[in-house]
């Protein structure tokens, strides 16, 4: 049996004024959390909607859970859960009514792990959707994607609208899906989120998949901005001998530089000085694209 849960071959979708996706060839392995990273409008949602057969491919093909994405679309959706990018449904329904309806369509007799998920996400399933904030509606959306414990979970910008605590909870839930042998395909424009939970990341830009990398390798490649304020004056050549440091700028007792890859050498070099403050900033998506592509998104 193939270990690929999602497998696309030169998958393209062009429609209307949208750029869509172009020649995307991708394999997502069983049991991994795969991040699909790109800026807004890069084609992430088009990719997901094509996999789910909401959009028919212009060319190329896709197999999901070993099934043809067009011919076997219903069977694929029976075995998967999906959170659309802009989760919306009849706002008169309460969360519980919505889940009961979805369970009935799925042919289930119960709500699976919905209640447990609701407790973890602190979601109120007793109120109509129109009374909920965007973040609380998103929680209901996450629950409906997960409550039936599907083999594959497809999530389009899942943490959108969630507060930081709930974002953390979501990342834990995503990791648990992997531990249970399930596959998560997570679309995001948040590099930090993707790096924290994903095993591998596909980077999409202007509808094209420009790289697929292990997160560990991506961290190696990714740069970080560091600002260090020393307690005492330092020489101009401070940290100049650390290989991963670049673009140093010393301003009085404040040193700004970038670290590419390993940060251990930086920490050891800084330990030789008295340091008042250190600030490390992760790269923006644009900077990541620079690293991969030579120009921003």
């Amino acid at each position: 049996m193939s270990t690929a849960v999602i497998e696309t071959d030169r998958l393209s979708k062009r429609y209307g004024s949208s750029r869509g996706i172009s020649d995307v060839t991708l394999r997502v392995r069983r049991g991994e959390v795969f991040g699909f990273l790109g800026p807004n409008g890069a084609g992430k949602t088009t990719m997901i909607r094509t996999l789910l057969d909401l959009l028919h491919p212009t060319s190329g093909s896709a197999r999901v859970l070993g099934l043809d994405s067009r011919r076997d679309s219903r069977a694929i959706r029976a075995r998967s859960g999906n959170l659309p990018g802009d989760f919306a449904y009849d706002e008169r329904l309460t969360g519980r009514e919505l889940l009961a309806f979805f369970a009935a369509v799925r042919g289930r007799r119960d709500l699976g792990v919905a209640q447990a998920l609701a407790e973890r996400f602190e979601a109120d399933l007793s109120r109509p959707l129109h009374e909920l904030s965007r973040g609380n509606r998103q929680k209901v959306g996450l629950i409906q994607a997960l409550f039936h414990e599907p083999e594959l979970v497809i999530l389009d910008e899942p943490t959108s609208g969630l507060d930081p605590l709930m974002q953390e909870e979501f990342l834990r839930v995503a990791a648990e899906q992997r531990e249970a042998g399930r596959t998560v395909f997570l679309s995001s424009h948040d590099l930090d989120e993707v790096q924290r939970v994903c095993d591998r990341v596909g980077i999409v830009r202007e509808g094209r998949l420009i790289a697929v990398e292990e997160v560990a390798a991506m961290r190696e490649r990714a740069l970080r901005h560091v600002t260090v304020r020393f307690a005492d004056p330092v020489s101009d050549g401070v940290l100049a001998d650390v290989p991963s440091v670049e673009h140093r700028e010393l301003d009085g007792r404040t040193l700004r530089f970038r670290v590419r890859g390993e940060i251990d050498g930086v920490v050891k070099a800084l330990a030789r000085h008295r340091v008042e403050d250190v600030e490390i900033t992760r790269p923006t998506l644009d900077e990541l694209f620079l690293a991969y592509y030579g120009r921003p998104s």
Partner: protein
Amino acid sequence: MSTTATRRPARGAIVGSPSSSTALGAIVRRGLRDQRRAALAWGGGFGAFGALMVAIWPSLEGSMSELVDSYPDGLKEAFGIVRLDTVERFVDAELLSLILPMALAFLAVRCVVQATVGAEDRGHLDTLLSLPVSRRVVMIASVVVTGALLAAILAVVWALTWLAGTVAGTGISASTLASGLGNVWPLAMVFAGLAALVAGLAHRPSTATCVASGTLVAMYAIDLVGKLADAAEPLRWISAFRYYGSAIQQGFDVGHVAVLTVAALVLTIAGAALFERRDVL
């Protein structure tokens, strides 16, 4: 708590893809629950109108025939007005010749469009189609719910009208009234089917509603003009209203009902097939 579990199907799950009938049943049940108020509001409104008509019939009974006799023949032919010598014929002229069929046909268009293209426009279809349900089933469910809603409205109109007629001592016939009201259902369902066809092509609810409602008005106009002008008479066969007639005056025409029902079915099937093939934007 953890959501982790073994990879065996969870308790309560039905293994594999649920059947289309399971999804259809669930969507129809949900749709019927959503339309309960509409059935009471529309049925209550038209039922009250019907009740008013039959309630005032005893005071008009003597003068109506003379009034109708004074109408021009062309007008009487165009609107199917015959002698208003019974309460059922009075209800037919006041409620069933134009107002109720047009209103219910428009409601049918609105219901199907809202459940399909409207759901697409609001982003609900993305969520619904994340479930193991085909677009074809969504379309068929919308027409089934519309059919049930129309039947419920007609039943409420029948009940209120018959009750008022009986209380007013008009001697109104329950079966004649039922055949007159029942005759509206296949006509309105043709426009539910037409809305399904348009929804299979259009992506905007306003476009779908305009095209289907415009066709409704055009069909009525063609039938009317065809009755008034001999030259336009052959065009009437393309109008659903040509097959509507009046069940109260001429009896229930099984042939015409069959034509309308088959047209509704064909339009719905074609609409479902088109909806299945097109992208959901």
